[in-house]
């Protein structure tokens, strides 16, 4: 565009960006305090609260989150690829209903999923198991992996696969040598998005996780309902930095706005 934003627009933009960043920056700043209560590090900067994380029970919770998110994102992706192939490549009765069903977790509030899964998992004796927790997360993240798989598949020129076909490749070879490499960036982006969604999920997990399978967000939630101190700020700061790294990775793979377009829309 030749027209640029005027001074008022830029002032608004600065305020908006400030509003978005302020709480994150503040969390980072207070986590470097030398005091044992929340304060800006005016007297001195220290890493004592980051060292304190090591001995706390945030560490096992972090590992739980890591396991659950890795497993859930991977399973969701593995289920999404064939399902996306089916809906992208075939016209069959029930196709639209199936797609709507696969995307429906986006319409169900997580609190509802949480109570439903709490009831159901305790009915079938899977409460406080990793198995139940992981599949609960699969339901939550699969709409994201499915959507990205669908988007990349429909963006693929059929003729490229047909070219391989006419050159003598079987269906399996076409998928392995042509289709998969071409949709891989989209799938990787979907996996990362699913991983982050699962890693950050709180509302449903509060109901499903047991003390032994407690994830990091649940641990943090329970912690901050008691008190907010520099320790939890330090944990948050660490999370922010990990997220920034993952975000840069995702931006490389797929473009953040295209990726997140799947996150908001219902």
């Amino acid at each position, binding site marked *: 565009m030749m027209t640029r934003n005027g001074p008022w627009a830029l002032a608004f933009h600065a305020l908006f960006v400030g509003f978005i960043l302020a709480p994150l920056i503040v969390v980072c700043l207070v986590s470097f305090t030398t005091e044992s209560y929340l304060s800006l590090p005016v007297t001195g900067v220290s890493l004592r609260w980051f060292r304190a994380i090591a001995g706390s029970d945030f560490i096992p919770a972090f590992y739980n989150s890591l396991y659950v998110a890795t497993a859930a994102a991977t399973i969701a992706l593995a289920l999404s690829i064939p399902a996306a192939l089916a809906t992208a490549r075939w016209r069959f009765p029930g196709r639209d209903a199936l797609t709507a069903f696969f995307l429906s977790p986006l319409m169900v509030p997580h609190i509802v999923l949480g109570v439903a899964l709490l009831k159901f998992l305790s009915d079938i004796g899977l409460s406080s198991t990793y198995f139940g927790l992981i599949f609960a997360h699969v339901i939550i993240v699969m709409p994201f992996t499915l959507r990205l798989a669908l988007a990349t598949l429909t963006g693929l*020129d059929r003729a490229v696969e047909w070219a391989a*076909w006419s050159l*003598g490749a079987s269906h399996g070879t076409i998928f392995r040598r042509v289709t998969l490499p071409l949709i891989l960036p989209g799938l990787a982006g979907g996996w990362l998005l699913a991983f982050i969604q699962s890693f950050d999920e709180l509302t449903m997990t509060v109901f499903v996780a047991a003390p032994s399978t407690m994830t990091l967000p649940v641990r943090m939630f329970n912690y901050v309902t008691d008190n907010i101190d520099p320790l939890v700020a330090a944990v948050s700061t660490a999370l922010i930095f990990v997220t920034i790294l993952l975000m840069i990775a995702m931006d490389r793979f797929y473009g953040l706005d295209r990726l997140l377009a799947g996150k908001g829309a219902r």
Partner: protein
Amino acid sequence: MAFLDLRGLTKRFGGTIAVDGLDLSVDRGEFVALLGPSGCGKTTSLHMVAGFVEPDAGTVRIDGRDMAPVPPNRRNIGVVFQSYALFPHMTVAENIGFGMEMRRVPAAERAVRIGEALSLVRLDGYAGRYPRQLSGGQQQRVALARALVIRPDLLLLDEPLSNLDAKLREEMRVEIRLIQRQVNITTILVTHDQAEALVMSDRVAVMDRGRIVQIDRPVQAYDCPANAFVSNFLGRANLIRAAVVNRGQGRLCLRAGTSEFEIDGSTEADEVTVSIRPERIGFVETGGIAARVKVSLFMGDQWLYRLDSDLGGLTVCAPNAGGARIADGAPVRLAWPADAARVLNG
């Protein structure tokens, strides 16, 4: 029996009928152009031959063998897609080598044949590039090399030149034709460019709404169009509606408006449509048919005149011989040899 034989090939997409009972026979080593307007079913026909699309009815035979149970990967057909469809994640060499890899050609032989194919399409030195690092014309030649290197029994080209600029397109026409002769491979070229069809092919098949309406050698198809559609589609044509005044001995005397003229041909009907190519009409001093220049268009090597006459609007091409153009609005007289006009069926 013909090498490639299509009988009653039909394909519907929902309500629309894309290909409607297509019959076509192509001899071994022959180059046939499939020509027709956009949406007439050329690509769909090609895809049925290649096996990507299953026909609703009809048969595809190659060398006498029914292809229905044979999947595309067993048909040994080389396809050049309109969009090239190169594998974007593979280098030029890997693209070209893919088909041989599928055929388990040993790596050493593969390398030799890739090199040969690259020189054939004049792309030596490009083996290590990725498709996105090539121009449109280069990509097109890689697609051609990839299709040729598997030594297919049949080569299908779907508008392979439509994305090239005019100059490169003319070069590639000649080049593809030379390569085809050199390896003597049966080829079908799909195009909606009539000049391309006429220049490159042994025979031209003109398609309209899912059917082949005429198939002939280029000269024949151009000079003796079967109907108004073909005559209009293959080059420019003046279509004149005229009443038959007199007939006999392969000659017709026709009248349109107040003018009368004679042509070669015969008909049972009392009224006919005749087609006259613009380049066959000449300006004469006396006699002929009176007309008035409406507008003249400069085409470089020729002038194109649009005229009003008794016979309706006419188009005339005159070579640019260096003389002055005829002014707009000037009265002229037109004439043509008796064999220039064709009586069209229907």
